[in-house]
């Protein structure tokens, strides 16, 4: 093997994992408060909005599986972030919607205790926020 082909081979080895592993915002997901996570996402002071709809149970008996349905009626919504304020790492998900997707997501989350769930939507470069309290009878982060 020539030196050049060896370098090319090593380059291939390095390039592969980089193309497979997509971006993941380690800093935002590692933030210990919702405020810090939002700051990292460039959404430090979102404007309150009634056009973000959060459907969730008022009381979740099992914190390991709490169903949450989110949709944004703000025109031009391009992303939605979900933060569970009292979880050790509040940022739970960030969803980017391309032009062909509706700003809607339904997911199940774990909640350690009763908490506000904050949803921050991005539209036209601005951030909007709504939140809703979910009471948790048995926390779902241990085990």
């Amino acid at each position, binding site marked *: 093997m020539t030196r050049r082909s060896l370098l090319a081979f090593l380059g291939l080895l390095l390039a592969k*994992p980089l193309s497979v592993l997509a*971006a993941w915002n380690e800093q935002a997901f590692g933030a210990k408060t919702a405020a810090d996570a939002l700051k990292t996402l460039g959404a430090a002071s979102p404007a309150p909005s009634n056009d973000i709809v959060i459907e969730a149970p008022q009381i979740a008996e099992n914190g390991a599986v709490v169903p949450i349905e989110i949709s944004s009626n703000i025109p031009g919504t391009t992303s939605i972030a979900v933060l569970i304020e009292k979880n050790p790492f509040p*940022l*739970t998900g960030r*969803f980017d919607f*391309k032009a*062909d*997707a509706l700003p809607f997501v339904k*997911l199940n989350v774990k909640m350690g205790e009763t908490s506000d769930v904050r949803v921050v939507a991005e539209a036209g470069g601005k951030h909007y926020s709504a939140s809703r309290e979910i009471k948790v009878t048995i926390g779902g982060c241990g085990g």
Partner: protein
Amino acid sequence: MAAGPMKMRATLAGSNTAGVYTEVRVLMTHPMTTAQMKEGLHHIRNIVVKQNGKPVVEAEISQAVSRNPVFSFRLKGGAKGDKIEVSWVDNKGESNSIETAVA
């Protein structure tokens, strides 16, 4: 528990007057464990939803998504036979994907 198979259903919903959309419901077999659990941190990080080969939703998620994640997404319009593909990658570099046609 290891990561495993996926299941997916994609159907047309809505109405001609209010607008038709494609409802995608996908299940991922994955432990989604946190660092506090004895299995250690193991969770899906990235999800991509594609419609006819084009990315339509890209998500980053944390270990606070429940075990064996189930997601619903909605895509504008759509037609029977559209190809929907969902793939995920976790923090250990494991991945999986599934493809189905809109029914």
